[in-house]
């Protein structure tokens, strides 16, 4: 069992032990390393001023970069990875990186406080593209920057910089430095950061097993442990609620849980697979599900957070459960005692309560793809990107010969759990798919839900929107030429 974490800060190796495992990467950078370029804007992963980039070995043996929020990333999650900050972008001779140069030349900073975070997000976007790739289009840029808030510029000059930044520097400009990908891959290999990890400090224990079997054993021994993957939710327990967590079991070092597999017409998404990986696997096959996952959060959130985490935390406003329930997804639950499989909808018992036995964890979610292409899913919130849902409706309505053969309708934000609209489904099933059916479905929704009022939306609005989303699904399936969408691919007003 390894008792220290090993990672690269730029090109330099760091080995740490005895530290507080709940220390955030942001605080460590600013307080211990005195690298003040990375800023705290919100301490909840919503503004991007703390954006840093993690480098880790990719599936093809190369180096993969992903931007993340340092403010909610716990230090042990760096184990075996490279951490890049704004301080690593300049060349050895002090010349600005092309991203930095483009930003300075396009007047892309005003107060400058958000700027390092934008530079890191653009650095990651540029690295995605690679040499010879065309510059990113507007939607790709918006998506790359959705997790970076700027209050001064109105974003125009930053988008202009993204368009002008060109390919990543290569060769002598980066040789042997922190941005030399081959050298970094070699340095990461030399860290020898394999095998299970256990670190402890400030009253918190952090376990990072490397096999699911070991995870079962740990969970049996520490029934109160918090299971942690991306920390995009649990991170806020620490940074916002100022809670101390005693025992953490980290899932991110278990390769089998990071996998996404396709088998028997279904996609099996492991507990540690990120939203971003799921998005890549769904691309082109489940457009509405993919767009829903894209809108769950920014690149930074999607690169850290996981689909299974979004399910396992039991939130009534998690965005992935409604579409997955509509598609008939199932969960694999595992413990030292064995495995069982349940329908996803059966997992959510009540607010804050899930069907999870002591010592059990969600190993994966299995998503049938057969009907995924036709799934209609609508997220309604105050802002299109990086916002928490007011109402989310998912509709899988199977129509044959003009008649509804089956209807699976599920909502988020309408009840204490993600919940199917049983009365609405019953009202639709077997009827001709017409206005009268929609009216019956609309009326039935009142029997399905009694939503709450909060700062996101009132109960009345939620119910009205839920009903109207049924209209929208009807229109989209029966009159596809009518424009109905303001966001997402193919939406009105793009291009």
């Amino acid at each position, binding site marked *: 069992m390894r008792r220290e974490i090993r990672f690269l800060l730029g090109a330099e190796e760091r080995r740490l032990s005895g530290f507080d495992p709940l220390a955030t990467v942001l605080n460590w950078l600013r307080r211990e390393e005195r690298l003040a370029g990375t800023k705290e804007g919100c301490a909840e992963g919503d503004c991007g001023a703390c954006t840093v980039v993690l480098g880790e070995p990719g599936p093809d043996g190369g180096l993969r970069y992903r931007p993340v929020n340092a403010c909610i990333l716990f230090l042990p999650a760096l184990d075996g990875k490279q951490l890049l900050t704004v301080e690593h972008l300049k060349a050895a001779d002090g010349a600005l990186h092309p991203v930095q140069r483009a930003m300075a030349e396009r007047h892309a900073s005003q107060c400058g406080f958000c700027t390092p975070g934008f530079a890191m997000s653009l650095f990651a976007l540029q690295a995605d593209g690679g040499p010879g790739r065309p510059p990113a289009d507007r939607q790709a840029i918006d998506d790359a920057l959705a997790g970076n808030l700027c209050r001064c510029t109105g974003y125009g000059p930053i988008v202009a910089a993204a368009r002008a930044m060109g390919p990543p520097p290569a060769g002598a400009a980066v040789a042997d430095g922190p941005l030399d990908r081959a050298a970094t891959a070699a340095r990461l290999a030399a860290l020898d950061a394999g095998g299970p990890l256990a670190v402890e400090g400030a009253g918190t224990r952090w376990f990072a097993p490397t096999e699911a079997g070991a995870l079962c054993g740990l969970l049996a021994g520490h029934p109160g442990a918090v299971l942690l993957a991306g920390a995009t939710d649990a991170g806020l327990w620490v940074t916002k609620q100022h809670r101390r967590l005693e025992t953490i079991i980290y899932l991110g070092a278990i390769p089998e849980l990071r996998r996404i597999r396709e088998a028997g017409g279904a996609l099996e998404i492991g507990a540690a697979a990120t939203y971003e990986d799921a998005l890549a696997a769904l691309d082109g096959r489940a457009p509405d599900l993919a767009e829903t996952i894209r809108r769950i959060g920014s690149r930074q959130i999607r690169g850290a957070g996981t689909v299974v985490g979004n399910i396992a935390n039991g939130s009534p406003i998690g965005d992935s459960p409604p579409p997955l329930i509509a598609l008939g997804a199932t969960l694999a639950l595992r413990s030292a005692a064995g495995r069982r499989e349940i329908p996803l909808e059966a997992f959510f018992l009540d607010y804050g309560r899930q069907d999870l036995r002591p010592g059990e964890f969600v190993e994966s979610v299995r998503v049938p793809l057969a009907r995924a292409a036709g799934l209609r899913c609508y997220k309604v919130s105050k802002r299109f990107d990086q916002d928490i849902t007011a109402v989310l409706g998912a509709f899988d309505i199977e129509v044959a010969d003009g008649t509804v053969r089956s209807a699976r309708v599920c909502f988020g934000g309408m009840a204490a759990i993600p919940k199917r609209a049983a009365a609405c489904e019953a009202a639709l099933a077997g009827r001709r798919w017409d206005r009268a059916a929609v009216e019956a479905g609309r009326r039935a929704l009142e029997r399905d839900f009694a939503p709450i009022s909060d700062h996101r939306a009132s109960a009345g*609005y939620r119910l009205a929107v839920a009903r109207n989303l049924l*209209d*929208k699904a009807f229109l989209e399936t029966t009159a596809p030429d009518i424009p109905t969408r303001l966001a997402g691919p193919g939406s009105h007003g793009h291009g």
Partner: protein
Amino acid sequence: MADATRGGVGAPAAHDSAALHVSGEAVYVDDIPEPAGCLHVYPCPSREAHARLVRLDLAAVRAAPGVACALSAADIPGENDTSPTGTGDDPCLADGTIHFLGQPLFAVAAETIEQARAAAARAVVETEPLEPVLTVEQAMAAGSFVQDPHTMRRGDAGRALAAAPRRLSGRMEIGGQDHFYLEGQVSLAIPAEGGGMFVHCSTQHPSEAQHAVAKVLGRPDNAVTVETRRMGGAFGGKESQAAQWAALAALAADRTGRAAKLRLDRDDDMTMTGKRHDFVAEYDVGFGADGRILGLSMSLAARCGFSADLSGAIVDRAMFHADNCYHLPDVEIVGHRCRTNTVSNTAFRGFGGPQGMLAIERVVEEIARDLGLDPLEVRRRNLYDPPGGGSGRDVTHYGMKVEDNIAGALMEELARSARYAERRAGIDAFNAASPVLKRGIALTPVKFGISFTTTFLNQAGALVHIYKDGSVHLNHGGTEMGQGLYVKVAQAVAEEFQIDIDRIAVSAANTGKVPNTSPTAASSGSDMNGMAALAAARTLKERLARFAAARFGVAPSEVAFRANRVRAGEAELSFAELARLAWLGRVQLSATGFYRTPRLGYDREKAWGRPFFYFAYGAAVSEVAIDTLTGESKVLAVDILHDVGRSLNPAIDLGQIEGGFVQGMGWLTSEELRWDGDGRLMTHAPSTYKIPACGDRPERFRMAIWPRGENAEETIHRSKAVGEPPLILAISVLHAISDAVSSLSGGRLAARLDAPATPERILAAVEAMRARAGAAAGRRAAE
């Protein structure tokens, strides 16, 4: 040798810190290496909106690990007040009464912020609850005000209303806005010898922070120095409300003899600091069949929070701008400053002006729908006269003659370049064929008065040194919050000396260098500090010219500064060489400059006079689409034409225009502040408070600087202020959304959309519009 200088007036020079920003090397207060033993201060917030503080026992707090001191109101050696205008109602720490939920009760200084926060939880706090006043309606009913109501009037509004051919009335709720500067409030206080205190403070008003620290510590102003190199955004939020945190940090530093830092995290910042005032506007308007306003009675009631702060001037500015660009013949405007048990609202880009303009634009929209006219046509018909217009419609409701009106010309040019009429026809056609998505368009103008309406604030000072190598050190009372003030003032100085801008080092605002400064606010930064710096530069230039004339035996008028060189008759030398010779010649190479804005004279008692030096103008066309099933909206296209006079720096000015517009768009669409019934702010972080993201930027965004712009007044190089006015261009977004909703009635009914236009408000307006349009159609059928 190049024959021109780099970075003079009119050049699109980069922000002076651009390279530092992008490399992460720009130093903000929290980035300054902490002195050894630096303490971290946590102000512990109240949990009630209104209560008597019966007992506060901090013994257990003081005994907690890492704690150096815990301070309550009783520990303040001087005055427990940081009110900006001397109203004495802004306690640093609660004393006797708790006025809002989140008000600091006491402050803990500890080795780490985590220790300070943990220690604070040990306090024994006993309170007796009092009934809170939370809303404008409650305050109006209770007669709860921070200042007396104030009226601006001309003629007889009542008679004009009664006599008008048409009359309508209504009410509009206008939401507030959090500044959401990316850098939260922060101060680092370092004790100095002899009872002195040095404070690094993220503030728009170093002098006020200095005076507040001195007052709280019970020391003279000269014991305290405040320095501000830059802020990570401010937007008005660090004008008056940075002082409290500076004072609390200084209090802890003074008590312990150790450096002390107070940095509010996002949630504390949003809970503990004031915002843009939310308003309730009520209007009763009489107008002719042509759409001209004949009489107007308007009430503007602002939620000020628990203290006056700057609310007096803010509501005044709302009242000054309740005309926007329109002549109001017989008019009465009453401003109410409601005292509520909520955080004290404060300055925010526009300073009340946007709310007043939103109110009158609603009135215009109502008139247009009532008469079946395009709202743009009603706007045109109500404009003030252009210069020399001759119809006598050129005096505001507060008695200032509008001498520089270009609103009409600017609107016509924009309507043409943005193809307003064609696009409206296209939108009508789209809407006729689109049952779910509806589009709307609106063109709204802006006229914004430039100057502090508190006349004495219209003064500025600067300090310029030339070193013997010819490099220049520039200092003035203005602060840099991202708006590009420092580069603009440096450009003016570079132009005056005819040297490259990189020969000029801009430096942090520091109360030891330029004293008694005004806040960098009211868009006046470059107008005032630019002129003050120019005055200092001219003094130095005259000294150099006199010296060169004597040295080379020519008349001073024969000395010319050009392209980093100086010619004196036949002799020519570099600026640096002349500086060295002047130093050897014992010429003083340091000068101060001072400026006070001319032509101001306003009598608040009579509510009549000239509160502004000039007006800045602009206009915008916004086109939006709404989803009538969900209420979601999206801004599709924006066209802006904005007047900055003769631009000092077009790149910086365009940045202000674009950024201001998007900030205003957020205010009027997605940024919603929500309190619960106990007075607790529920939207206190970016997860719940949604400022525009990159993807909200309209797909098509065109903007241009008014090419004929030139300030009629003698401002710095005939430029105009640009900080605040562009925010108000975003009123066009709200009106475009309203237009889209109105399309459901064929444009016959006003949507009466309150702000912010969240999906919920838009859907409610859509449903109400459908019901009203149905009823109206029913009535027509019955007739």
